[in-house]
């Protein structure tokens, strides 16, 4: 909390130069006080790596056909026929948050190159969740053990809107991973779920230009 107060004071000093000296003196007192108390100190000897953003993504992801009464053997809605994408952790880290994002688009006609406007608008208005997270389902696991998506018995893929947050509000995590562990992320384009009825009139299924999951990681290794 004190960081917010410090920042507010520093911003006020920047805004009003006539008070900068007084406010900086106040700030200095507050920082000294925090150091004496110890609870607000920074972790000694660690690289600060909040800038580490581990991104796992897919591009040009097409939807997989949904099971129907006529085709019950298709991949269930809570699974995917595609393989998970592996991510090898480059250092021992504390993952403090995860967010997701996706963008759908109408694709150009393979012969004419023309993008159908209706199809493209549909792609833009389709999301109901922030950052297009309801356009894809996701399953996240570590070293083969999937924890982000299960009914308690089996692995289940759920919409990313139920699994990860947004860049503004990431889903909080406190996940310690060691160097060289493998994070696996599985994606499925589910834009065809709400469009099951209208798909025949939309010239092509909507493609995800990109679907991505971003892990915010703190480097826990000593420099």
């Amino acid at each position, binding site marked *: 909390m004190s*960081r917010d107060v410090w920042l507010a004071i520093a911003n006020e000093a920047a805004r009003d130069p006539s008070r900068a000296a007084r406010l900086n003196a106040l700030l200095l007192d507050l*920082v000294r006080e925090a150091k004496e108390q110890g609870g607000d100190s*920074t972790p*000694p000897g660690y690289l*600060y790596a909040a800038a580490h953003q581990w991104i796992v993504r897919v591009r040009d992801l097409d939807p997989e056909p949904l099971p129907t009464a006529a085709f019950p053997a298709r991949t269930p809605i809570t699974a995917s026929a595609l393989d998970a994408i592996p991510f090898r952790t480059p250092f021992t880290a504390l993952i403090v948050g995860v967010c997701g994002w996706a963008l759908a688009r109408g694709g150009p006609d393979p012969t004419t190159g023309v993008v159908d406007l209706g199809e493209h608008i549909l792609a833009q*208005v389709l999301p109901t969740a*922030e950052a297009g997270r309801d356009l894809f389902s996701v399953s996240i696991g570590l070293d083969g053990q999937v924890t982000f998506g299960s*009914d308690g018995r089996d692995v289940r893929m759920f919409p*990313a809107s139920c699994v990860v947050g947004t860049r503004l509000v990431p889903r909080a995590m406190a996940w310690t991973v060691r160097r060289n562990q493998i994070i696996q992320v599985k994606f499925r384009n589910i834009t065809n779920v*709400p469009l099951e009825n209208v798909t025949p009139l939309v010239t092509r299924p909507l493609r995800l230009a990109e679907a991505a999951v971003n892990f915010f990681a703190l480097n826990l290794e000593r420099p």
Partner: protein
Amino acid sequence: MAGNGVRAPTLEDLQALLQRAQGAADSVALTSEVVELIQALPPPQSEILSRPFYERGSLWTLGVSFENVAPDDVPTPQNVLMPHDMWIRGVVAQAYWKNPAPDVGGALVPALVQRLAPIQPNNRGLFEVGWRIDARQGFISSGQAEINASAQLVAGDGQWAAPMDWRLEKNQTVEVRLRSRMRDFIPLGLPDTTDDARILRWVVVAFWGEELRQPSVQ
């Protein structure tokens, strides 16, 4: 994605900078640097390193899934099984309305209506949910009886999870019940509509939780 980086700024760095900034001229010149340094400070040690090990453990998304729910259906309750001793911290939900066929107003109109209607985000206004532990203890009630409530009221959208604080043992179950509200959204009597336009294609209710014991993957 680099494995190495520069040393993080520390409180000592901030203190040194502020001491430099005590002169009147330097106070003004260094203010933006002070702001940047505060923003670049790592989180306090107390936030990163003091939590018990198990709290850094596996985070779970334990969910149930309902498909093709017609407006008058009473779908079979779905159960989430606790794979470990779990601390359930929150609940989120998402629904997909199976947009009606284009002869009921054109392909784009339903998507636009869906976008503008007060059911967002996540289409949570389209359904009601209720949950019980071990098919006995219910938690959503009118005071006299257990009820289902709009997911807008009781579940989050993934940017946030509606807070919960259940400590459950391995093999306990959370039973989730669902009821469609599509008849409110597309009422009977609306011209040119059929129940084909009122199908919830997929509804997911997911509980966010942590293992209460040291997880095996850590």
